[in-house]
């Protein structure tokens, strides 16, 4: 009976963590990262919530796929200064419109929202102070 309980607990834990980011932790990964070029800025994307773990849509930056919204995961891209639209589609598309300046760092939190059939991912621009604090709990989820 004890073994059965242990087995069930293990299976439950596996289900919960399945699909979560498994790369190096943020600090470890970023220790070897190079800064963006002088005429570029950096956009960090991260998802702290494990709710709706099965929902992992592609994250689009101006219609270019830049990564996946993996629970507990982060990734970043360096881009020229300018205006950008971030979106992630499931049954509905939610977007974020933002600008990026040279040498600027922007943090985009990927929030899970209730949907009619499946959850939605809503990209939300957060303060640097908030982003820096939250992103350290995530692991790299690059492709």
């Amino acid at each position, binding site marked *: 009976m004890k073994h059965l309980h242990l087995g069930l607990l293990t299976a439950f834990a596996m289900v919960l963590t399945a699909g979560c980011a498994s790369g190096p932790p943020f600090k470890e990964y970023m220790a070897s990262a190079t800064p963006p070029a002088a005429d570029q800025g950096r956009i960090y994307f991260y998802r702290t919530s494990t709710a709706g773990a099965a929902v992992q849509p592609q994250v689009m930056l101006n219609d270019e796929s830049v990564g996946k919204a993996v629970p507990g995961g982060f990734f970043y891209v360096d881009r020229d200064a300018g*205006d950008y639209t971030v979106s992630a589609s499931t049954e509905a598309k*939610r977007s974020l*419109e*933002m*600008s990026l300046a040279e040498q600027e760092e922007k943090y985009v939190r990927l929030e899970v929202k209730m949907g009619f059939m499946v959850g939605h991912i809503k990209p939300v*621009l957060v303060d640097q102070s908030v982003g820096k604090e939250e992103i350290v709990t995530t692991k790299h989820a690059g492709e």
Partner: protein
Amino acid sequence: MTVNPYTYLRGMKLLVCSLLLLSGCVAQQIRLSETLRPPETTSQSFVLLEPASLSAFGSRRQVLREGTTWLAVGELDRGTVFKSKNQVVTVNSYNVYEAGILVREMQVVGYYIPSTESIVEIDPVALKSSELRENTE
């Protein structure tokens, strides 16, 4: 397959109620006929001495933090648009838009969204701030 009429009606009622609730829950953007002009005088700035809570219909409430510095980035007929390097301002509705605050006579009267060249009006909020000063940055 037969559908229980009661279940069907209940489902339809739920759907109609959800649609009614969802409609109008998006921040109303007013498209401007004018474009943002560069600040009229030397760029101005102020430091917020007390937090200011901004609330627009259909958008998440936003609190401008005490101690944040705000720089004038442009002029509209309705007021001056300020942005901060210390704080991100967004209109957080169904979609999210990075924005500036629209200030007239030291009251925030709306958000300015550069990507759509529109504003979202709010109930005016008085700012307790340092005096406007010339930007030295």
